[in-house]
């Protein structure tokens, strides 16, 4: 293992199987749909037992989640709004997973991206018109996030530093950097309630997509998913990255620029989270403060694993969790449950989902015929 630290850590299950051949492909693909769905069903069942044990009604819970997340135009738009940062932070996990890295620091890149965007806006407001300001803000947010997560990739390649731990450490450091500036040099003194940067005026905020109250972040998130899917599965770059993730030694032997591939993948991943931070600031909060660290980066990890690190599957999974997160408040008020209820459910789904990895290849019904 000495000269192949990356290959060692690449979990087999994280990287989807290589393309299957022939007409029986749907059979083996079905396995990747049926098992996660079974895992979700099993975790909801376990969660129902948990609710019954503490004397709450699982039926009421499900109906509240449905009403708060998906029933009706208002709640549906709220859900889409919340799924936008989940889509982008899930990409922060999914892209490095292809090259064999487990990154869990999307939260930090989101916070830092949002903060840098808000800080850049302060001197530009009133001087530069809204559109160029927003484009610049998005750009620096992506750079900040990209550098942050790219650093994890670089340290992994150059020094063998475990990227899972370093990315989480950088999350705490990133949040500390934002707190330092928001409570110190960049604090808006006219706002005594919550330490924040100066707010963006309404004319500088990103509006919603026509006919909805959902901001443009959702649209860009879906576009990013499609673009990154194409990048990772239809280009030489993506192929080289997947080869590196599958077998580090083979990639080295082929003369692939392994280091550059790793840094590129992690920078793209960080840029996604940074963009999520930009949209949180420019479309929702209007300023950078502690509310940026709302846990989207952590839920994004779960979304990515549930989507089996496939960018095209991320949006629907993110919408599902966006709905659960959006319904959290309603569940809390109506059922008298703590706000951590959603966290328990998410943790349970995550644990059961990873346990279900053991089921792959166990059912003969999914085996292609004649093999």
């Amino acid at each position, binding site marked *: *293992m*000495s*000269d192949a*630290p*990356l290959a*060692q*850590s690449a*979990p*087999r*299950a*994280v990287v989807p199987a290589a393309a299957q051949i022939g007409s029986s492909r749907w059979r083996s693909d079905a396995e990747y749909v049926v098992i996660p769905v079974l895992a979700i069903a099993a975790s909801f069942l376990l969660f129902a037992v948990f609710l019954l044990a503490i004397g709450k009604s699982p039926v009421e819970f499900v109906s509240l989640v449905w009403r708060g997340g998906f029933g009706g135009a208002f709640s549906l738009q709220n859900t889409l709004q919340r799924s936008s940062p989940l889509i982008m932070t899930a990409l922060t996990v999914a892209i490095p997973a292809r090259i064999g890295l*487990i990154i*869990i620091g999307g939260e930090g890149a989101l916070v830092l991206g949002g903060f840098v965007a808000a800080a850049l806006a302060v001197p530009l407001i009133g001087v530069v018109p809204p559109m160029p300001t927003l484009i610049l803000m998005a750009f620096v947010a992506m750079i900040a996030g990209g550098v942050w997560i790219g650093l994890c990739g670089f*340290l992994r*390649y*150059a*020094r*063998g*530093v*475990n990227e*899972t*731990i*370093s990315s*989480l*450490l*950088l999350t*705490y*450091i990133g949040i*500390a*950097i934002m*707190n*330092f500036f928001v*409570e*110190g040099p960049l604090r808006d003194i006219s706002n005594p309630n919550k330490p924040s940067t100066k707010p963006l005026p309404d004319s500088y905020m990103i509006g919603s997509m026509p006919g909805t109250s959902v901001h443009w972040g959702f649209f860009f998130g879906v576009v990013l998913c499609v673009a990154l899917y194409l990048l990772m599965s239809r280009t030489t770059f993506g192929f080289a990255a997947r080869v590196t993730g599958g077998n580090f030694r083979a990639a080295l032997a082929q003369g692939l620029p392994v280091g550059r591939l790793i840094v590129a993948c992690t920078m793209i991943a960080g840029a996604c989270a940074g963009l999520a931070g930009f949209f949180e600031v420019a479309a929702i909060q209007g300023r950078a403060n502690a509310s940026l660290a709302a846990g989207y980066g*952590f839920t994004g*990890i*779960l979304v990515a*694993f549930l989507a089996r690190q496939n960018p095209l599957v991320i949006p629907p999974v993110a919408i599902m969790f966006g709905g659960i997160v959006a319904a959290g408040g309603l569940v809390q008020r109506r059922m008298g*449950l*703590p*706000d*951590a*209820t959603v*966290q*328990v*459910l*998410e*943790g*349970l789904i*995550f*644990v059961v*989902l*990873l*346990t279900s*990895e*053991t089921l*792959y*290849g166990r059912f003969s019904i999914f085996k292609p015929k004649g093999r």
Partner: protein
Amino acid sequence: MESSILIVLVAMLGGAIRVSTPFMFVALGECLTEKSGRVNLGLEGTLVLGAMTAFAISYHTNSPWLGVLAAGLSGCVLGAMHGSICSLPRVNDVAVGIAMMLFGVGVAFFFGKPYIQPVAPHLNSIPFGFWSDSPNLKSALQINPLFFVGIAAAFALAWALRNTRWGLVVRTVGDSAAAARAMGVSVNGVRLMTTTIGGFFAGVGGAFLSLSYPGSWNQGLSSGQGLMAVALVIFARWSPLRCVGAALLFGAAGAIGPSLQSIGVTQGYYFFNAAPYILTLVIMIATSSAKHSAADMPGELSMAK
């Protein structure tokens, strides 16, 4: 000027002893787990759940030591969960650790809601500064008994790993699963046991967070200590005794911010608060290598350090 430097140093000494205790317990637990060839990244969740359980039990029974025991048992449950899930084929221990971290924190926040306000009996510290006239030194030497329990546990663990049959089995499983199987040892069974005991240690570390002076439970009690302890084990090269030294170093780094605050330096408070994370990162960069694996690393560890 000179006296304020002294105050900071004394406060850092006290802080190092205080802050290092949870690091020490989590690191000892993780050290044992990793010795058997498995990584449990979920100890952050175990730490938080341990803190909540200890506080709740101490509140209801008026006995902080029962709280410590309950915290350890709650850690056992999470450890056993991790250990048994990872015994299944094709399951990745690092990913399960991340899931267990989110799960443990979620459960702790869920059940901990009613305990944010009340006050529970805490573990009384032992005043070792009785000989001194300096109030600063006196407060720095208010040492919690769990600190000594941790040091005793480190010595016991180091001895047991080196000198007992049990220790030999754990080390063999960690270095070569094939050799252990040839010896007739159940590899998954041993790893389940080490992960469960490791969870116990981390749970006790959590009890310190909520039951040491002044003793309170809130959602911001731990911010990454459990994860930093995993990095600390790498730094300590999988030796329980070196874990104690490393924990003290991390504790001192964590005490920089509050110590400077005690003499009125509040500038850059958030940066000093980030000192332990930065130190951890710097240490990881300094001790890792891209070319070869760390010295003394158990051969079966899936996670390349």
